[in-house]
């Protein structure tokens, strides 16, 4: 069974440019998470989807970040415009259900903003 797929794996952009990350969760997983992880830190939740509905986006900086999960499968996270402080690893995870259900993570996208 394929795991969570993310692309690109690495992205380097100039500040003020837009950037988008893509995630394909494990087949059949209804819950999808986007996390931000700074070096040497734990993941920080940005947004959680139940199917196509964003049910927890309280920590998503909505002035520059947006996300969508059309048809409740793939998801895209966008930053526009990017700032220097956005440099981090962006992780996508999926789980079959809620709460303590095991979250399966993708390899992440390492973003560097110059």
């Amino acid at each position, binding site marked *: 069974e394929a795991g969570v797929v993310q692309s690109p794996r690495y992205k380097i952009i100039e500040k003020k440019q837009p950037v988008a990350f893509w995630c394909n969760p494990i087949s059949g997983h209804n819950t999808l998470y986007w996390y931000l992880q700074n070096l040497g830190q734990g993941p920080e939740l940005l947004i959680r989807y139940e199917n196509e509905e964003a049910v*927890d986006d309280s920590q998503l900086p909505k002035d520059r970040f947006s996300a969508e999960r059309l048809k409740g499968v793939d998801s895209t996270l966008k930053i526009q415009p990017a700032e220097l402080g956005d440099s981090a690893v962006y992780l996508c995870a999926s789980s079959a259900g809620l709460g303590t259900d095991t979250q399966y993570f993708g390899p992440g996208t390492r973003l560097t903003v110059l």
Partner: protein
Amino acid sequence: TQLLKQSPQFLSIQEGENLTVYCNSSSVFSSLQWYRQEPGEGPVLLVTVVTGGEVKKLKRLTFQFGDARKDSSLHITAAQPGDTGLYLCAGPRDSNYQLIWGAGTKLIIKP
């Protein structure tokens, strides 16, 4: 506020040594999870502890949940270079299904 504090932040030891890392909170958690994250990869779940006082073993790794369900420890016996990684603990927030994450312990096992 529910927080998880992990210690030490960084540990570098020789192959064959034993070690223990900790995950502590002032709040009670219904369960705690331990993940290992290798460079360039996402975290991978190792174990979930649910019952106060519970001990779970995964080969050379022993996980313990405190009696009061406020803390947990991970003990590695005879550490190997393959154990190198970032060890993260996480627990569910009371108010919703969000996981609260510790900052992790970066472990390096030198051959």
